[in-house]
């Protein structure tokens, strides 16, 4: 396998990264989805460096609580130690590699390896070594052989993130201006900044396609509505029709936000000032609750209450739906052709029981392998991947040219500072600015040797400065 740093041209398996992600022509090679060498490089260059979501604080409320999660291909343990500190460890004994935890979740004072018996405390320290005095003569330096811990961890509004790269920027710097949009997922519905929690039961299932298919879908694909024709026909929305309650989008401006220097992206709707407040007809308690939240939202968010957040992806593999259903999905790579999807469902901690119950049912029927909506996505990703593996298919790149070279119409942001590359797609209905931003960042990660190169915004070369109203195209950038 060739190394991407072997020469100055940044090659992966003989393919130039620049050719594979060709932003000037708006194409992306199928190789990056199907090629095994490129997949192996992603593990080193991308998943070992990026900030990755591990779990939610509400899954481990008490000391000793743990949840076994993944970072890329690796199994990790998210746990709370006796002093209530949160840790993330590689789930592998430092002696001979055995998984020290094969349970999905629980509470424990120690993680004991069933192979030779090394035992680790919940703060990662090596606490028990069989025959420490007799076999090791008491000389083993236990302080050096604790569980391997991530060098950086951040609990951001209840979501726990970690990176294997000690040189990665802080999580907030990694997010950049995208934080504004992510907060709409993590803050309470009423905008008062209260706590959220996840329902018990994390969905885990195997999707036979490359992990980037769902990541780019959530980063801002407004174009795939036809995928969901069947659910739009039969209705699964909270009020019984459509997929969601889309009344709130009537008369709204559709805006896409891309952060090509970071890879994140999301879509949204900016409601007119006098726009309708969505209603949830399910029951009086539920509709009263959401009406109350919307009123509070107007007070707490001010002008931002017009902002209806939509799906998004935090680079590389954390995708979410911030409104209804309110879910987090992580796409864990398993091979070029397969990934494991894990899904958490969020709810405001203080929501009435009847509201939580209503949302729980809606979430289940919408999302995941049994979800009326997502079943059709997975079929499309599955067979898009399947039909891209052949030697002939690989010669022909995917097309990401939508909206390139055209200004998007201006709009009245009414004084809102909207971070990122903003594109008004109300008339166009869709654009692929966000996907181009995602793959631009993917290419950065495969080219770069370290975080000094990746943190391009520090060098004044940021292409994520404020561009409004389609200025991205005017700026000469392929984005």
């Amino acid at each position, binding site marked *: 396998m060739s190394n991407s740093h072997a020469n100055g041209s940044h090659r992966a398996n003989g393919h130039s990264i620049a050719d594979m992600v060709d932003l000037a022509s708006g194409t992306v090679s199928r190789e990056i989805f199907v090629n095994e060498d490129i997949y192996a490089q992603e593990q080193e260059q991308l998943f070992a460096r990026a900030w990755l979501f591990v779990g939610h604080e509400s899954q481990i409320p008490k000391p000793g609580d743990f949840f076994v999660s993944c970072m890329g291909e690796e199994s990790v343990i998210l746990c709370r130690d006796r002093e209530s500190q949160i840790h993330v460890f590689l789930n592998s004994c430092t002696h001979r590699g055995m998984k020290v935890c094969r349970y999905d979740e629980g509470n*424990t*004072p*120690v993680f*004991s*390896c*069933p192979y030779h*018996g090394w*035992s680790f405390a919940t703060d990662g320290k090596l*606490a*028990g070594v*069989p*025959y420490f005095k007799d076999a090791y003569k008491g000389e083993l330096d236990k302080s050096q052989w604790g569980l391997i811990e991530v060098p950086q961890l951040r609990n951001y509004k209840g979501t726990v993130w970690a990176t294997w790269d000690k040189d990665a920027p802080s999580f907030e710097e990694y997010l950049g201006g995208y934080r504004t949009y992510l907060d709409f997922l993590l803050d309470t519905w009423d905008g008062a900044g209260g706590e959220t929690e996840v329902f018990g039961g994390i969905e885990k299932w195997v999707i036979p396609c490359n992990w980037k298919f769902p990541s780019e879908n959530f980063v801002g694909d407004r174009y795939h509505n036809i995928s969901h024709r069947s659910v739009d026909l039969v209705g699964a929305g909270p009020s019984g029709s459509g997929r969601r309650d889309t009344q709130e989008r009537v008369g709204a401006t559709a805006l896409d936000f891309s952060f090509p220097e970071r890879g994140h992206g999301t879509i949204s709707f900016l409601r007119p000032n006098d726009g309708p407040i969505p209603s949830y007809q399910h029951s009086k308690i539920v509709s009263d609750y959401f009406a109350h939240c919307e009123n509070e939202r107007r007070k707490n968010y001010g002008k931002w209450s017009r902002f209806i957040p939509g799906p998004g992806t935090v680079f590389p593999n954390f995708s979410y739906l911030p409104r209804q259903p309110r879910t987090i999905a992580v796409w864990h790579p398993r091979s070029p052709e397969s990934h494991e999807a894990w899904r958490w469902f969020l709810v405001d901690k203080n929501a009435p029981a009847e509201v939580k119950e209503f949302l729980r049912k809606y979430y289940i029927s919408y999302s995941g392998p049994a979800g009326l909506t997502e079943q059709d996505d997975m079929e499309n990703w599955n067979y898009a991947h399947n039909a891209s593996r052949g030697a002939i298919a690989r010669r022909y790149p995917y097309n990401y040219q939508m909206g390139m070279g055209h200004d998007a119409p201006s709009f009245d942001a009414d004084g809102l500072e909207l971070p990122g590359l903003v594109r008004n797609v109300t008339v166009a209905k869709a654009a692929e600015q966000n996907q181009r931003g995602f793959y631009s960042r993917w290419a950065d990660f495969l080219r770069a040797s370290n975080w000094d190169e990746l943190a391009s915004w520090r060098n004044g070369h940021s292409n994520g400065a404020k561009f409004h109203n389609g200025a991205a195209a005017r700026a000469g950038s392929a984005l």
Partner: protein
Amino acid sequence: MAEVINLITIAEGARISTINGATAEVVNNPKDGVWVFAKYLTSPEDPDLVGSEDMIFAQDIAEVLT
């Protein structure tokens, strides 16, 4: 030599003896079948251990006394 002990079944508060001839009271059982946390009651070989709490490995336990 005593028979093989299943650590999962040892209750907290139980007294155990070790193959070194010490006795200890189980203060916490993680029920992983590999280790127990115990407080030494007697330790003829190393009297300094008495009163201290330590992890005791399955194969170092000779017998459950109570």
